[in-house]
Each structure stands twice: as C-alpha cells, then as structure tokens.
C-alpha cells in the first residue's frame, strides 16, 4: 500500500505532456480540415439516407448540415488544446464532439478513431497544460512537475494498443499464409523499388512476422532507456512505411506522436529551449510550482478503471465460439488492425407474408457505396439494415414483411461462401451481445489468439 502511495507521489517534469498536447491538438486540427477537404463530412455524415448505429447508441443522430458545426467545434477545440487555452474545457469539448461524430455511423469505424476517443477521455483527467500553454499565462501559474503516474497512464495505454495488436497477429492466416498482407503487398506493384520486392513471397512473410514482432516488442524497446532511440527510429520507419502502403489516413502520424511520450523530460528540454527564447513568451509574472490536483484521488480511480477496462475489453471475443474474423463478434475496439481482407456481396429480399408483395432491394437506393461495401461483410450491419428495410416497407404497404438475405463473403483470399442463413427472417433476430446463430460458420479454421 505504501509502495502505491509512494508511486503516486512521484514527480516528473511535465515537458512530455506539453509536447504531446501540442502535437495532438495540431494533428487533430489537421485531421478535421482533411476530413472537410476530402468531402467526407458530406459523403459520410450528411449524404446517407440511413446511418448504422453502435449498439446502445441508437440515439446519436446525424445533425444534417449542422454536422459542419460539429466539425468546426471539434477543430476549434483541438486548436485550443494545442495552445493550451482553457485546456480542461477544450479537451472535454473535443472528446464529446469527436466521439459524437464517430457514433453517428459505424460504417467508418476505425481503430484509430477509437484510440483518439479513448485518449482524449484520458486527457480530460491529466494536466497536459501544466507547461507551455496559454493557460500558464492567463493564470500566471505554471508547473515544474506533475505526478509521474500521469505520464505512465498514457504509456500504459500505448503499450496496450501495440501489444494487443501484436497478439492479434499470432494466428495461422497472418503467420503461416502471410494473409492478407500477401494480397495487399502484391497489389502495390507500382511503387518504385519496393513494388518489385512486394511480388516476392519471402517479403510477404518478412512483413507479416516483422509486423507481429514489431507490435509485440516495440513498447518494451520504447520503455527501456538504452533502446529507446533505436525503437523510435523503428517506429518512424514502420509507420511511414504503412502510410505509403495502405490508405490508413492519420493513424501512422498519431502513433509516431504517441511514441514520443516514452522520452524523458530532459530529451524534450532542447526542443522547448528554442520555444522559451521567443520574446513574447517570456513573462516574469509566472509563478512556478508543483502540480497537485485537488481531485488526485478521483482521477486515479477513473483512470485506473479506464485502463483496467482497456486491458480486459479486447478479450471479450473469447466469450464467443466460432471464427472471430468471420463472425466479427467482439472484433471492434480490440486493436485488431490490418488482419482481414473481406469482400462481400449481400442482397436483400423483402416478402409480405400477408400478400403477394415481394421486392429484391437495390441497396444503392438506401445506402452509399461505402456503406454497401462495409455492410456486405459485417453481420451486425446486415441485421440493422434488414430491420431498416422491414420498417421501410411496412410503411409502404407491406402488412407483415419478412426480410431474407443472400450474402456471400470471401475472407483472406479464401473461396467465397454463403455468409448468412438465407432461410432466416432477419426481422425475427434482434441485435444483442448474444451469439448470432444465423451466421453460417466459416468452412475453415484459423488457429491463434
């Protein structure tokens, strides 16, 4: 108990937090602008006729054209976070607005969006504005130290992300077939130099095994003093490589930024020296002191719970029998990245059991191409869409609609097979955490975690 108390009282210089805050805020601001620039606010959040909801968050609605306002709020709050202006309020607003956006439609689910939601929640309870923030000037108060556990909490979370991503790669598809990397790398044939290399089988295996080892080991190498610089170079090399190869947006840059949290305060001081020489920032009025939160106890509690949940939650897939990559029960929110190449073709029949009305649904009448692509191989989305269709046709004269689905999916280069039982009226099935018995099992076995 004393050990814990001692640990919680340990102090550390706050530079790493300041650097992370500035980097995070700017990356998020850039990310919002990029979203706007690519027209995604329109195509992902405004254009669609229906949105796919996360279980339990059906109440989160698209705000129509006010979604732009939501993005502006999110962008401005990330700028404020970067500046360290009214930090607690700004990061809170960022967390709420960003998470709200993500909850509007699960079609766009990405692990790194979830990562951002979790860290921004974590940041609400941490003094990222302790130094080098506008708040210091406004409050005439800056901090020479922060509790060490504040930084360790972030490190632990980054550790979980990498390590779990590595664990998920220990499976027969990834290690023994080099799938799906072999397919993806082969298709990058037009890259200079690497394109030819990517046609070679040993390169696929090298990347698969290398990726697995990287994810498992990099957090350790980042923690250990002697290997940190080397590990960080590897982080840059690895993520820049993935940025070139795959359309994964901001993820590589976010991970590179978060790897800097492992550096010690001394290593940051050089950077901030340059900062301090800016005349405008020199103020004599600032009072330096140690940071002590009035809410230390509750902060420790909340963050402990958060991290504890993060450690356990990715393992929930073990509670489901059947092939995880195929059924995707407990697949999201578990740092399973780049593991599956799935392509589906899914069509719906709506039949009225009280009349001779029947219809084969043209998906593009209701969904965007992006939604069709994602829905076609994800069981929960297929079910949600089936219910949407049932409601839709009930309002249009179908007295007792039944919805059946013809769905075929291919996984990691396997032959496609029927995905959903076509004799099941999906309107009789409800979304829940229970096993979905209407998924036809994969005719193969993927061994691994």
């Amino acid at each position: 108990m004393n050990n814990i108390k001692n640990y919680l009282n340990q102090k550390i210089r706050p530079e790493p937090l300041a650097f992370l805050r500035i980097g995070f805020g700017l990356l998020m601001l850039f990310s919002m602008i990029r979203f706007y620039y690519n027209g995604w606010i329109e195509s992902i959040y405004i254009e669609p006729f229906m949105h796919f909801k996360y279980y339990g968050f059906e109440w989160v609605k698209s705000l129509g054209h006010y979604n732009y306002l939501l993005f502006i709020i999110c962008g401005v709050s990330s700028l404020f976070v970067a500046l360290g202006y009214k930090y607690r309020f700004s990061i809170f607003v960022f967390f709420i607005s960003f998470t709200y956006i993500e909850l509007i439609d699960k079609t766009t689910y990405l692990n790194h969006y979830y990562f951002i939601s979790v860290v921004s929640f974590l940041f609400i309870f941490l003094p990222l504005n302790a130094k080098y923030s506008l708040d210091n000037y406004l409050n005439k108060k800056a901090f020479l130290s922060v509790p060490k556990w504040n930084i360790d909490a972030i490190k632990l979370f980054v550790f979980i992300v990498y390590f779990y991503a590595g664990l998920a790669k220990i499976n027969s598809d990834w290690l023994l077939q080099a799938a799906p990397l072999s397919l993806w790398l082969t298709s990058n044939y037009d890259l200079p130099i690497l394109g030819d290399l990517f046609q070679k089988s040993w390169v696929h295996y090298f990347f698969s095994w290398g990726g697995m080892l990287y994810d498992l080991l990099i957090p350790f190498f980042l923690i250990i003093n002697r290997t940190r610089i080397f590990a960080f170079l590897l982080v840059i090399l690895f993520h820049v490589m993935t940025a070139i190869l795959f359309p994964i947006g901001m993820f590589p840059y976010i991970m590179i930024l978060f790897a800097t949290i492992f550096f010690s305060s001394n290593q940051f001081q050089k950077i901030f020296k340059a900062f301090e020489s800016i005349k405008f920032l020199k103020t004599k009025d600032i009072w330096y002191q140690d940071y002590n939160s009035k809410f230390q106890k509750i902060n420790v509690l909340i963050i402990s719970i958060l991290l504890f949940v993060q450690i356990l939650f990715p393992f929930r897939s073990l509670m489901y029998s059947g092939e995880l990559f195929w059924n995707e029960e407990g697949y999201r929110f578990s740092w399973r990245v780049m593991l599956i190449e799935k392509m589906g073709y899914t069509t719906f029949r709506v039949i009225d059991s009280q009349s001779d009305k029947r219809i084969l649904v043209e998906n593009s009448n209701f969904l965007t191409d992006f939604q069709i692509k994602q829905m076609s191989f994800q069981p929960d989305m297929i079910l949600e869409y089936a219910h949407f269709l049932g409601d839709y046709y009930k309002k249009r004269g179908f007295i007792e609609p039944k919805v059946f689905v013809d769905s075929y999916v291919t996984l990691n280069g396997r032959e496609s097979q029927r995905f959903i039982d076509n004799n099941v009226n999906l309107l009789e099935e409800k979304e829940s955490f229970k096993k979905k018995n209407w998924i036809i099992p994969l005719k193969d076995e993927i061994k691994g975690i």
Partner: protein
Amino acid sequence: MKKIYLFLIIVIGLSSCGGGDSNQPSITNDGYDRGALLVNLTDNIIIPSINQFSNELSDLNQSFQTFSSDLTQNNLMDLRKKWLDAYISWQYVEMFNIGKAEEMYYFQKTNIYPTNTARIELNVESATFDLENNSNNFSAQGFPAIDYMLYGIESDSNMVITKYQSVDGYKYTNYLSSLINQMISNTDQIINYWQTERDDFVSSTANTATSSLNKLTNDFIYYYEKGFRANKIGIPGGVFSSVYTDKVEAYYRKNISKKLAIEALKAVKAFYNGESFVDGTSGESLKTYIDFIVSKNNLSNIYLSQQINDKFNNSEQMLLQLNDNFVEQINGNLLQFLYTYDAIQEGVVKLKTDMLSVLSIAVDYVDADGD
C-alpha cells in the same frame, strides 16, 4: 545496443537489395505484366470490337439509304437485317463504358429500353429534337428506338411500309435517318477517342481508382451485373419487383431477345478470357491475372478462374434452353427464366467477392480511410 544497430543495418540492407534488383530487367519476370494485359484487352478486344461495330453501322446506313429512296418490302427486310447485325455487334461494345463513352453517355444513347414511344412520336411529329444533349431523348434513340421504327409503328411489315409511304411518311424516314446518323457520329467520337488515348490508356498500369485496369475491371463487373444480368433478364423477369414483359430487349422485333443476351454473354466471356475479337486467340486477361496471383500467393482459392468460367458457361447453357422470345418465355415459364437469372447471379458473386479481393483492385467508388 550494437546488436540492435546491426539488425537495423540488416533491415536497411535487405530493402536496398530490392532496389538493386529492380534495375535489372529480369525482375519483370517476377511480377505480372499489367502493361501486356492492357495491350491485349485494348488492341485485340476493345478497339476491334468498336471498329467492327462502326462498320456494321455504315452497312446499316447504306441499307437505310436504299430503303428511303425505294420503300419496298425487300429493302425493309435488308434494313431490318442490318439493324440486327449492328445490334449484335453492339453487344460486344456496351461494356466498355469508359473515358469518352462514359462522358458522352454513349451507352445511354445507344441501348436504353424500353424505348419511349410517346417521345419518339413527339419527335417525329415536331421534327425538332436534340438527340445529343437532351437526356429526355436518351430513351428515344439508339437500337430500341429503331426497333420501334422498324417493327413497332405498325403490326406487320406491309403496314410499316405503308406508313413510310403515307403523307407523313417522310417524317418517319427523317427521324430514322437522324437516329442512324446520331449513332454513327457518336461512334466516330469513340473511335477517335481510342485513337488518341490508346497509348496513355495501356501505360496506365498503377493500382489506383483512376488507373486503366481498375476502371476497366469495375466497368466490366458493372456491365455484367447491370447491363447484362439486370437489364436483359432481371428487370423483365420481375426479379426486383413485378414482371415487365415490355422491358425485354428488342421488344418490338420480339424473337431475338435470347440471341442478344447470348451474344452479350459471349462478349463477357471473351473479355474475361482475353480472347482476341479478331482471331479468337487468348492473351493476357483477368483470368490469367487471377491465376498468377493465386499461385504466386499460394491461395487456397485455386479453382477461382475456372469457377468463374464455369458460372459463365452454366449461364450460357441455361440461356440456350430459353425461348427465342423472352416475352413468350416469361409468359410461358417464368420459373425457368428466373433460374437462368440465378445462374447468372452466381457469376456476379464470384466477380464481386473472390475476384476483386484476390486482385485487390481498388474499388473506384469508395473513398475513405481503412485500418
């Protein structure tokens, strides 16, 4: 620490080895030659098909000239025959809705059915119409419109001739002339496009949404699913809602809907297998590309390229057993018609899941991050 730097040096060393390799010409043996694939598809299939179609249109026009100057039964029969020849030839062109063709709505201006007869009659009567830019006229031109002009305006050939001979007959002749001329001028633009763009097209071998192979593959699948499966079978057969016999292809001619569908499927098969339109020899194709990737990456899906051909062949067998006239087929034995649809549908599944996944073709319509 030293060991780790050694490891780093090895990693960098390995990647630079690759760099050295790529400078040697032998490396191309290791990868699939997409340039050769595009050259084969373009030079041996796309361009010759369009040239052939253009020739058929010239013949059609010639026959029309004869007919318009001498409105006889024989000349009408020849005109009808030339129309059918050109229509068959079109089945080999429709799927290449790419570049200029897409931009100028070439497919929509050539083969939208059912044709809009009220609109046609309006155009005939007013004699002022814009076939080029007015999208309301898409369904009042092309083969389906000529189908109506040659078979639909009266119930038999004698009466059709009588109609062309009547006081207002010249209006019909003029409209028919406009329809044929429009198709010729459209097709000239397409030929011109391929003449100027061919070199750029075959050298665009990257794997991006806008590169040639991706667009061609996406258009091919789109055609198989919509132009072939849905338009020719699914929609008239009532797969999507209720039965519409008037939505069969060549509705007024009646007994060639099966023939056109079979030709369309032959065109699909030939494209997939890379069979030359000129002499039927096989070259690089989606099929050989699939085989290459499957064996290179040791995929379990080893029969994929053959399975796709099996689906096509099975569909062809089913089609061959249908009535020449799909209207009669639908009225007589709808179930058999729908089974044929199901057989064709199995091909869609293979193309849209297995093939796209194996080839990792960037799907042209989806633009978002992944992880």
